[in-house]
């Protein structure tokens, strides 16, 4: 009981010093949580990928498209249930900063994406309208799109001004699903290509391949690619997750840098905390020597210092932990839809707790050892 009293009161002894240390911990734990959430958000698409979908793309590069004729040959491969088309459009909505993905897709695309919940009436309305588009709920909320609205896009890959009519809004089956994209008819894009001299029609960006069993993904991928081996347009078929990760891997260096910064933040606060505890312990050398003279053991002294360090870290870390979801919500808002899924995971919250606890323990080790080993006669002579 006395130990708790001493720990609490010692922690509050230098209010400005403790306050600043708590503030530093708050910032560090908060920054760590946000940075880890950024990394998680980067992988959100890959994490949400289905195990029963494969992506077939050009083996050379995503910049190269595949012939439409491949579709029927892929569908003929054993284990393949559905084949849908998807082509990246890359249009600009008003200004380049208003980025969101747009895909020209085949009519059966949504059959493969059960996680995009679309009202049947909307889907039928979309199917009936060549210029019709389906937009995800997150995208609709961001720009205020409603059914019947016209979405103007300035083409970059497919030049010219395009106008699509929102015919439906689809929701994610759960909150982890990204619904920040727009889908429109591949056939509409293909017709446009046919009318443009010098452009090749009947080309598909990627094929989305539905399969009957996830455990057969590797075999089916090999079978699909074998169909087109040694052709002028060889394919590369991989799981949707691997496909998504190949995008993430383009940003590997950035992600690594973010991770390193998050660890550096913790290391810096560790140094600050260790300095605070070293100063406090040094100032109290005579008090610790007095306690030892009275009969308190070295372990008791170590507990006082460790307890104080953990108490400060608990307050700072706790505040940082509490603020992280709010800060994440603000960050998501400020990022303007760059991270459609930006939720602080349980793993990140747990890591924040562990970081705060580790800082509390590691920062106290040296001061606690020094104070508990101080010779009483020398400690009593010390001036705080």
């Amino acid at each position, binding site marked *: 009981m006395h130990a708790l009293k*001493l720990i609490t009161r010692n922690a509050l002894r230098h209010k400005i010093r403790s306050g600043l240390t708590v503030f530093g911990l708050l910032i560090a734990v908060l920054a760590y949580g946000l940075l880890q959430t950024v990394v998680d958000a980067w992988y959100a698409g890959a994490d949400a990928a289905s195990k029963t979908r494969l992506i077939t793309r050009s083996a050379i590069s995503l910049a190269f498209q595949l012939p439409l004729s491949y579709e029927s040959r892929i569908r003929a491969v054993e284990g393949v249930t559905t084949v849908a088309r998807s082509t990246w459009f890359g249009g600009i909505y008003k200004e380049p900063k208003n980025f969101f993905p747009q895909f020209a897709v085949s009519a059966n695309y949504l059959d493969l994406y059960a996680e995009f919940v679309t009202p049947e009436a909307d889907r039928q309305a979309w199917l009936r309208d060549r210029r019709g588009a389906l937009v995800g709920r997150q995208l609709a909320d961001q720009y205020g799109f409603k059914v019947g609205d016209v979405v103007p896009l300035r083409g970059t890959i497919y030049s010219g001004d395009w106008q699509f009519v929102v015919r439906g809004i689809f929701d994610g089956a759960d909150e982890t699903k990204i619904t920040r994209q727009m889908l429109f008819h591949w056939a509409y894009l293909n017709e446009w290509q046919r009318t443009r001299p010098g452009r090749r029609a009947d080309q598909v960006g990627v094929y989305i391949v539905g399969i009957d069993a996830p455990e057969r993904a590797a075999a089916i991928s090999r079978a699909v690619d074998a169909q087109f081996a040694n052709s002028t347009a060889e394919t590369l078929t991989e799981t949707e997750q691997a496909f998504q990760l190949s995008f993430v891997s383009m940003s590997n260096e950035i992600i690594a840098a973010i991770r390193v910064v998050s660890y550096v933040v913790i290391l810096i606060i560790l140094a600050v905390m260790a300095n605070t505890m070293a100063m406090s312990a040094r100032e109290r050398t005579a008090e610790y020597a007095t306690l030892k003279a009275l009969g*308190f053991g070295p372990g008791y002294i170590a507990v006082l210092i460790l307890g104080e360090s953990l108490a400060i870290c608990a307050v700072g870390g706790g505040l940082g932990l509490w603020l992280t979801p709010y800060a994440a919500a603000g960050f998501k808002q400020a990022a303007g839809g760059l991270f459609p899924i930006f939720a602080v995971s349980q793993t990140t919250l747990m890591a924040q707790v562990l970081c705060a606890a580790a800082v509390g323990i590691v920062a106290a080790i040296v001061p606690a050892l020094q104070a508990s080993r101080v010779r009483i006669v020398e400690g*009593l002579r010390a001036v705080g």
Partner: protein
Amino acid sequence: MQPVVEIRNLAKSYRRGGQIVPVLTDITLDIQRGEFTALMGPSGSGKSTLLNLIAGIDKPDSGHLRVGGLDITALGEGELADWRSRNVGFIFQFYNLMPVLSAFENIELPLTLTRLSRAERRERVELTLSLVGLSDRKDHYPSELSGGQQQRVAIARAVIADPVLIVADEPTGDLDRQSAADILAMLQRLNAELSTTIIMVTHDAHAARTARRLIYLDKGELMLEPPTI
């Protein structure tokens, strides 16, 4: 009757800058139970070192030192800490109170090492507070007390666990004349009324006169004929 402190051929030296400096040489001394002894001597004579050895917060190089019949030189650090908590009360020149604890809590501190219940501890602290005349200041922190009052809290802390002996290192060294006289009177009263064994290091001849026995040290040796004070 067996002396409470038995010192035989005690020696202590310190290493300073690669040199060994003898501080105490061949000290042999007995202190009887209930004695109030003053240790005097010039600076560097070894009186504080002798006090520290008797109190078990320092270790001799050689010789025998028995306190309450126990050879404390043979005890390990942990045993010594435990022994100190039960047998020695400390009074320091600068009081050495815990600044974050109230007078009551400072006095209670040694009792937290015992098995006494909270109620028993409270009762003893209240009694000791009244003994040193600070019942009305029990909730005050050291910074809210005068030097004399702080030293009275320190005395209360020293006697609360009913130790075999009390060691006081310059207990009046930081006090004004009146406060010093009050503290010395209090120590005398403790010794007279409770038969507490007190060993006090002091520079002050006036303070030394309050003791019943005077031991004089010079250059680490006991003087057979103390100088006139």
